[in-house]
């Protein structure tokens, strides 16, 4: 960015960042547990009550990338970007009904990951491995995207300190943020993001409040903001005979994202760290508050249009580097006083640290439990297990960092999109598995494979630019989120093959009992 650096904004930003860093290390002492045990390091000892869980799940699910990318979507594409609101509405009844069962059975059997559960329920190592690997692979680009979120606000502050090493351009502020994150995750485990999530939310809600009150006043009210949006982008184009149009794309995107959400390892970690099933149920009631904040944040995309930031020369570099993702930083820089810019940007950056920490912990739990212990060192001690998880959490984060420095930003976005298509394929084994053991593990395995293949193929026909694949059914064009279409195929294969395989009726091991789930 041209012009002098905004010293006030940078100072506020750094001060808040330093504060959460200290908090991250102090967290190790909080509700002290033996951090050489995996369920202590990686699940916070399963002791988080309603309030801490609320912050943790909120930090987990409403991430920095969401704060940047959703308004960007409204800014660029219009109404379609608002799908996040119905998406975050329909997940809560599902959380209320389905996931207390996962908590109960995991509590009873000491499961730390979804793959642990699948291993116990279906007695299939192969199926558990696919769940673990899908989880890890889908999470990696998600972590990289969080780092992109930090990158955007650092660029917004004009902090350009980079050096070139072996062809990589390494941005120092990002590297520093990252090393700090890795260090306190290593020492404190899940307690660190849980504690920092509280600070993050105070900052986010403060920022949202300021945005909803101050910006519309400056821009001449909500009516004016909506009036300045291209009318063609304000609503979804209605369906026409023979084509469901954008409306079915919108609905399936919301549905698919909702179904995928709680299959992500970091969501499972958030759920399993709570102290009881009632905590999960209460959170299903309280979590939609975030959905409301998210809706308001999304509308910042339209505010950015009304403010006309795109044509302002001061932000030309930012838009050139980050595209629509620069809409929110530009809007905040344009309308907020310096100190509030510092607070808001810190909120976004810290909003990236919390999920990045949880995601790396969740991946580490999966690798340690379901790959290392299962295949390499079945006799490992508790201390070895948690040590391995700590190391893996570092490796996973380094992977995300290499991604951000080494590849175009677009790669992370494409892979994250594919990650959603992949992770949803674990739904039959994990979510249906909570209700029935009728599905045959081999059928689930083949169903998973067909879902992954179909989903990836659909995304490839769209050159990985979009996730909305147009299905043609009885001459009607139905645009559908590829994850949902692929899941339908997965389910069909799983059910049909289960009928076949079950006909050969050998009894299968299941270490769980019906009463473990309630």
């Amino acid at each position: 960015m041209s012009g002098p650096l905004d010293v006030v904004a940078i100072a506020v930003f750094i001060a808040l960042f330093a504060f959460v860093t200290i908090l991250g290390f102090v967290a190790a002492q909080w509700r002290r547990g033996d951090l050489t045990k995996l369920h202590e390091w990686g699940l916070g000892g399963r002791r988080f009550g309603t309030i801490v869980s609320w912050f943790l799940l909120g930090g987990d699910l409403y991430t920095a990338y969401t704060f940047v990318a959703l308004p960007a979507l409204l800014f660029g594409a219009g109404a379609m970007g608002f799908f996040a609101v119905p998406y975050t509405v329909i997940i809560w009844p599902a959380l209320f009904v389905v996931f207390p069962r996962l908590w109960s059975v995991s509590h009873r059997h000491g499961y730390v990951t979804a793959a642990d559960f699948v291993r116990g329920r279906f007695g299939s190592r192969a199926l558990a491995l696919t769940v673990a690997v899908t989880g890890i692979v889908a999470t990696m680009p998600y972590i990289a995207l969080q780092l992109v979120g930090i990158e955007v606000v650092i660029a917004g502050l004009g902090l350009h300190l980079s050096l070139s090493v072996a062809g990589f351009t390494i941005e120092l502020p990002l590297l520093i943020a990252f090393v700090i994150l890795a260090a306190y995750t290593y020492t404190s485990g899940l307690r660190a993001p849980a504690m920092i999530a509280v600070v993050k939310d105070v900052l986010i809600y403060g920022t949202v409040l300021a945005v909803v009150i101050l910006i519309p006043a400056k821009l001449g009210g909500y009516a004016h903001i909506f009036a300045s949006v291209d009318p063609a982008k304000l609503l979804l184009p209605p369906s026409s005979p023979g084509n469901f149009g954008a409306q079915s794309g919108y609905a399936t995107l919301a549905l698919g994202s909702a179904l995928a959400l709680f299959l992500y390892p970091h969501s499972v970690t958030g759920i399993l760290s709570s102290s009881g099933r009632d905590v999960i149920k209460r959170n299903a009631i309280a979590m939609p508050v975030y959905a409301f904040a998210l809706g308001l944040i999304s509308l910042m995309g339209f505010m950015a249009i009304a403010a006309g930031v795109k044509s302002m020369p001061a932000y030309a570099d930012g838009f050139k580097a980050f595209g629509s993702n620069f809409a929110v930083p530009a809007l905040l820089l344009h309308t907020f006083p310096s100190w509030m810019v510092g607070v808001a940007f810190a909120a976004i950056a810290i909003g990236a640290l919390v999920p990045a920490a949880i995601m790396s912990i969740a991946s580490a739990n999966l690798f340690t439990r379901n790959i290392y212990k299962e295949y390499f060192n079945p006799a490992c001690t508790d201390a070895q297990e948690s040590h391995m998880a700590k190391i893996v959490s570092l490796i996973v984060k380094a992977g995300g960092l290499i991604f951000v420095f080494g590849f175009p930003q677009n790669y992370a976005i494409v892979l994250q999109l594919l990650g959603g298509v992949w992770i949803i394929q674990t739904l039959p084994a994990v979510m249906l598995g909570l209700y029935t053991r009728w599905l045959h593990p081999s059928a689930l395995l083949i169903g998973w494979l067909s879902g992954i293949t179909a989903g990836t193929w659909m995304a490839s026909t769209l050159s990985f630019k979009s996730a909305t694949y147009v299905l043609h059914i009885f001459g009607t064009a139905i645009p559908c989120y590829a994850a949902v279409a692929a899941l339908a195929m997965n389910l069909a294969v799983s059910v049909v093959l289960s009928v076949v395989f079950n006909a050969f009726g050998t009894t299968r091991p299941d270490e769980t009992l019906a009463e473990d789930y309630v």
Partner: protein
Amino acid sequence: MGAKMAGRPRRRARPYHLLLLLPLLALCVPFYDRAEPSLAGIPFFYWFQMAWIAVTVLAIFIVYRLERRSGGGL
């Protein structure tokens, strides 16, 4: 949360659990994909979906209370 319930709690679906289907109206896009009736200049599409968040909270809250009262639930 309170003490663990003695014995095995009964978990089964009851009619009031149907309330949990209410949030799914958020997927009926043609219903709300319109500009009117607008609210203070905000098109229906936007304010309806925001309002539906409140309905969702209420629906889950009522089910939660009813479950507590009947001492079971899902």
